[in-house]
């Protein structure tokens, strides 16, 4: 059997050397970095030293706290993209990992367990001598590992199920785990989660050695307080960049290609020697770890954690981000997350206010939130199933076969060829 292996048809169009082809290949990473730097410069120096309508405009339409929330949601959407977009495992309970990550941060970065006094490079808030205070950057790692373990634990018994059954089981976990946290203030008399009151306040993000770079135009405190939004932006953007980098690198490697193979045809993939269970579990673990990291970021940004934050709708909004952006394409997912979270957090409200003040009609736009999200999901599925910025492979897989193609393999279709 002699077969010549032909190079894959897909791939970057230009593989030449030199600065321009390199930039063209890496247009998205460069764009992300440039946008992040631009935002930081804009908010740290330009807007701070301006007065008048321009800073007001930014303050109304794009405050930095909303930008930070958008980035945190993007981190989690990139994590969900590994499970749904890469491996094709529909997860409707991703919020569980977010909750586990968030509570890990709550336990390890607050004075909640006041019977213990532990501090590992901790930055306890004033008046909190007791409790567990572990450095934010360490907690990121711990929470990632912790949620990855939970991903394995949840995935191990359930991952042999087929698509919609798996979706339901994940949904079940997505409901059980927040309910556990909600009722967790009395587990046989032990208060583990403080129930609906939640855990607050949380320790600040320490800047470590970077505080010595502090200068007049860029003061860097030892701990990021509530008003250091632009420095928090740097922190979250760095974490997002790390998550995106990891997710892109894994996709190129052996594991990532195995995920794509499973997504496209599980049976064929297993025939080619892809170990199904192990590969799917890896997807769950990596996705869960990123969700946990996102949970830590979310908790640190909000400053508290309570079980109410983790509803089914959050899982669905994350899924909508992945679907809207383009399943499987990290950059698309990131853009989808930024856009949707902006609409969710600030955009709809401001749009409503603007229309109200312009026309005099009182339109409560945030109350249309559910309608907007539902309509986005339905319309995207009907008219642009592959998302705004699709991965080329996803586009092929998700495209319905044409009528002619179907008939050529023997299908007999009735009705008008619509």
């Amino acid at each position, binding site marked *: *059997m002699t077969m010549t292996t032909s190079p894959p048809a897909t791939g970057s169009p230009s593989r030449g050397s030199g600065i321009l082809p390199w930039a063209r290949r890496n247009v998205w990473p460069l764009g992300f970095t440039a946008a992040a730097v631009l935002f930081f410069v804009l908010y740290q120096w330009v807007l701070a030293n301006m007065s008048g309508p321009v800073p007001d405009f930014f303050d109304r339409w794009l405050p930095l706290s909303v930008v930070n929330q958008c980035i945190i949601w993007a981190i989690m959407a990139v994590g969900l993209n590994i499970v749904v977009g890469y491996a*094709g495992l*529909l997860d*409707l309970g991703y919020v569980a990992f977010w909750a586990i990550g968030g509570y890990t941060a709550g336990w390890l970065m607050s004075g909640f367990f006041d019977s213990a006094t532990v501090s590992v490079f901790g930055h306890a808030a004033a008046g909190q001598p007791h409790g567990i205070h572990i450095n934010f950057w360490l907690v990121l790692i711990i929470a990632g590992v912790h949620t990855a373990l939970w991903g394995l634990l949840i995935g191990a*018994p*359930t991952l042999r*199920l*087929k*698509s*919609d*059954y798996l*979706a*339901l*089981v994940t*949904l*079940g*976990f997505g*409901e*059980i785990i927040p*309910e*556990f946290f*909600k*009722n967790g203030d009395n587990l*046989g008399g032990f208060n583990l989660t403080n129930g609906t009151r939640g855990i607050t306040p949380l320790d600040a993000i320490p800047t470590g050695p970077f505080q010595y770079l502090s200068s007049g135009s860029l003061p860097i405190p030892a701990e990021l307080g509530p008003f250091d939004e632009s420095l928090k932006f740097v922190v979250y953007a760095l974490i997002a960049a790390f998550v995106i980098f990891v997710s892109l690198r894994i996709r190129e490697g052996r594991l990532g290609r195995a995920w794509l193979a499973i997504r496209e045809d599980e*049976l064929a993939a297993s025939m080619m020697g892809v170990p199904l269970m192990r590969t799917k579990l890896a997807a769950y673990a990596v996705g869960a770890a990123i969700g946990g990291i996102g949970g830590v970021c979310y908790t640190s940004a909000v400053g508290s954690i309570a079980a109410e934050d983790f509803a*089914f*709708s959050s899982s*669905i909004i994350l*899924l909508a981000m992945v*679907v809207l952006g383009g399943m499987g394409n990290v950059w698309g997912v990131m853009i989808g997350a930024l856009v949707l979270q902006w609409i969710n957090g600030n955009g709809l409200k401001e749009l409503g206010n603007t229309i109200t003040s312009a026309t005099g009609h009182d339109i409560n736009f945030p*109350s*249309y*939130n*559910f*309608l907007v*999200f*539902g*309509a*986005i*999901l*339905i319309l995207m*599925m*009907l008219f642009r*199933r592959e998302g705004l910025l699709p991965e080329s492979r996803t586009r092929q*897989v*998700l495209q*319905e*076969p044409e009528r002619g193609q*179907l008939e050529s393999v023997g*299908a*007999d279709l*009735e*009705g008008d060829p619509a």
Partner: protein
Amino acid sequence: MSQTVVEAAEPRSFRPLREYLVNGLGLLLVALVLGFLLYKAFTTPGRFFDAFVDGLNKGSLYALIALGYTLVYGIIELINFSHGDLFMLSTVVASALVVTLFGATSASVGAVLLLLVGLLLVMTAAATLNVAAERLAYRRLRRAPKLAPLITAVGLSFVYQWGGLRSNGSGQKVWPSIFKNSGFTVGGVHIEWSTVIVIGVTIPLLLLMMWVVQNTRQGKAMRATAQDQDAARLMGIDVDRTIAFTFGLGGAMAGAAGVLWIESIGSTRWDAGFRLGLYAFTAAVLGGIGRLDGAVLGGFLIGIVESVNASGLLPGGGQAWSETVVFGILILLMVFKPEGILGSPTTEKV
């Protein structure tokens, strides 16, 4: 590749052992739960049977909703996530129609007649909405990958929830029932008239459904379409119409459940549909998805389990843990016996 001979023998010898282990473990769990319930029935009969009657009431509502899931899943293999929210909209419409418009709040012959008119109207409305959803969204996605209709259903569920939020407000509303707080006592167990009405309406509806599916021409078309759409089409069955009819039937059951809910539980909430819909889906899976009798059996089982748990009979249980209990059942079921109680295991077609 002609010289390679595919070996017929596969290394599957240890497979049955594992299946026995899994099945045995599952049966052991079921036996433990049943044994515990029997024990409670003998030690605290009053509380147990109160919970049991309450469970029958809830269970018949779950059974009606579960039928909508199982019909749709049986015919196009879609988990219709919006079905629970369709039920929620039905409760809202029923409250507006029966209580606010008809003013049927006290027990009289006229009120019962108005209730029946309301039942028919809400069933028609819910069926129409479900058929419209099929026509506008799901039909276009029938040949698409499974993820697409599933996400569409989730989107539709959001739209329905928005409808509920707009019409019912963000809080819970409580409505007066015709038979509220009146009943009779049999052997120390209090039974409300509303429970009797719920079961009295549910059982004929379920029998009617089964008759439609098993004995009518339309039912035959439904079963044929469920088996093989292309073959059904070749036999002259209008597949599109049959699927639309199935959605209508399921919607009508959700509508009936909505009216009965107002008469027995009596509260409306915009986000109630999601949780109840999932309970009903768990019921459908428990009985064996795609089977009508399975949905009914599962509905009653889930209703009873939920009520027994809510009555505090389970140690460490209680109302606050009801989602954990029901979804725990769902997860255990998926792991041990995905085909349900009455279903038979199927192998995947390649």
